[in-house]
């Protein structure tokens, strides 16, 4: 059961200073990510979901080493890699696919030139680069002759395939997918997800999948973490989190997913939509950060930040309501009936 995780993130925190005044002194901080911990096992697809401004992309950037964490560590395959943008070995192991394929490819460089960058910088034999680029394009189901084209000649989905090919070039073990489909049409999204799932099986890849699209996440991920204001509200297997969400925020998020058929609508729990906007990460509410929007908030929520409560096998949530329940009932896990009866 206990297998060392491929990626282990513990206590990850990132604060961006806000500078102001005449000498640009520090006047505050945007607390983008606060004490986030999770682990991804080899071959797993771990999803991080949350609204805009919940710190998803900041976590992605810390995992690949673009940002240095304010606190906490990132361990990859047992070694500490926090903030290692220059580490060549790590660069070879972890790659990233960005949200906007329009800006993640240099408009002035051909597809082949873009895809060849990682090969050149990881000492791939020069003579074989052209062949390898063609091979990579085939892996992402693009014709070989796309190599000589410029990004503006490609559609969004094709560009994202190129970005995936580029990430695959040095045979990484972990790929961070930062909202890889949110800039694409729905029909294209499904194809990209299919491609990624296929590649994962074929090449033994592990994914950290970041998205705000819960439907995609449910289909693609084996485990998920729900982020709210830079903190994990709930983590667990996809089945548990989507089947019996424990945290009021998760419930509201799932309740907010639009459905297309009457059958789905009938099955959907009737949970009131969240009111208000996500608070600014520069002024995170005291106590539980969700209490300003939580329909069930009571006194302790305004004072004390809740710790994780175990609600099932590998399923945890950070909510005072669950603490009360487990304290009185003293049963773990809470039965699904009881949870659905949850206020």
């Amino acid at each position, binding site marked *: 059961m206990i297998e060392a995780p491929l990626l282990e993130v513990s206590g990850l925190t990132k604060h961006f200073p806000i500078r102001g005044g005449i000498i640009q002194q520090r006047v505050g901080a945007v607390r983008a990510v606060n004490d986030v911990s999770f682990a991804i096992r080899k071959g797993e697809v771990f999803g991080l979901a949350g609204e805009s401004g919940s710190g998803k992309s900041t976590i992605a950037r810390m995992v690949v080493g673009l940002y240095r964490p304010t606190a906490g560590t990132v361990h990859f395959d047992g070694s500490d890699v926090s903030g290692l943008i220059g580490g060549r070995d790590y660069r070879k192991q972890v790659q990233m696919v960005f949200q906007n394929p329009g800006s993640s490819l240099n408009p002035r*460089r051909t597809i082949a030139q873009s895809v060849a960058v990682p090969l050149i910088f990881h000492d791939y034999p020069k003579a074989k680069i052209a062949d390898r680029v063609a091979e990579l394009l085939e892996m992402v189901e693009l*014709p070989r002759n796309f190599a000589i*084209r410029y990004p503006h000649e490609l559609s969004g989905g094709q560009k994202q395939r190129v970005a995936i090919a580029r990430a695959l*070039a040095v045979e990484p073990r972990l790929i961070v997918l930062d909202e890889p489909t949110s800039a694409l049409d729905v029909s294209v999204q499904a194809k990209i997800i299919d491609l990624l799932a296929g590649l994962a099986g074929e090449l033994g890849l592990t994914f950290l999948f970041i998205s705000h699209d819960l439907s995609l996440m449910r289909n693609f991920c084996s485990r998920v973490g729900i982020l709210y204001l830079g903190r994990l509200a709930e983590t667990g297997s996809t089945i548990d989190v989507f089947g019996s969400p424990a945290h009021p925020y998760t419930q509201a998020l799932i309740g907010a997913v639009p459905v297309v058929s009457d059958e789905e609508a009938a099955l959907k729990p009737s949970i009131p939509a969240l009111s208000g906007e996500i608070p600014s990460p520069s002024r995170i509410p005291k106590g539980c950060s969700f209490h300003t929007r939580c329909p069930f908030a009571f006194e302790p929520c305004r004072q004390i930040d809740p710790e994780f409560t175990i609600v099932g096998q590998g399923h945890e949530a950070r909510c005072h309501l669950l603490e009360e329940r487990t304290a009185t009932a003293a049963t773990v896990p809470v039965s699904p009936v009881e949870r659905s009866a949850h206020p």
Partner: protein
Amino acid sequence: MAVLNNGSAPASVEEAVPAATISNAYKNWYRFSRNPTAVIGAVIVLIVISCALFAPWIAPYPEQVDNFVDFRARHLPPSWEHWFGTDNVGRDVLTRVIYGYRISLLLVVVVLGLSIPFGVMLGLMAGYFGGWVEIVIMRLTDIALAIPPLVMALAITAVLSPNLMNAMIAISVLWWTWHTRLIYSITRTLKTQEFVEAAEILGASKFHILFRELLPNCVSAISVKATLDAGFVILIGASLSFLGLGVQPPTPDLGTMVATGADYLPDRWWQSVMPGMAILVAILGFNLLGDGLRDMFDVEDVR
């Protein structure tokens, strides 16, 4: 059509895509050719450059360029033999104007050739690295920008001996600042685009990011700026010569010719007005062409 063609039907994609490339290049040319001032600018610049390159073949009296004296032909007004008249020692003014473009364009090529690479490199570094690199480079640039270029050039050529070489040095000393400013602001914008972060994650070197990722995106801006600059460099070079601190007689320089001819105004106007007009036309040509290029690139460059 191409949007839906997600690589599933290569045949039709192949047909669609090269057509798009051709139409892009064609669109650029079309946009340029429909802009009359830009085309006029391009024609003028071509004529000026041809004059400079082929002066010995174009000029009617190439033997009269510098050390030539014919007192019988002094101060002749414009005529069929001498379109622009003759000067105070009997030399053909048109011949000297054509050769004068040589000096002006040599000045442009040397000044821009020295200052653009230097300015662009500093701008790229300041914009990309940020931090203290940015502070040092940009504050130096601000200081340099505060000095009027003509005053600086006057000071330098006055201290060193006044000649063409020193005029080039004097102008180049400050010229890079404008390019540093321009490239700095472009780089700052480009840096926020994901392709720069992507290159970092992919393990690319700083050199690669500066010169292979960022620089190609600055080329259109640099070419517009360089074209507009050419006119200003001609003007400053002519001003220095006019004040006697640039090219020395008998070398045919437009500024020197205006200065010498000014002694004979207004009766023998052609000796200063003709070279003056030549300066005006060259500057006008470069400015019109530069504006045309800017219009052409600005629309196409969706940043």
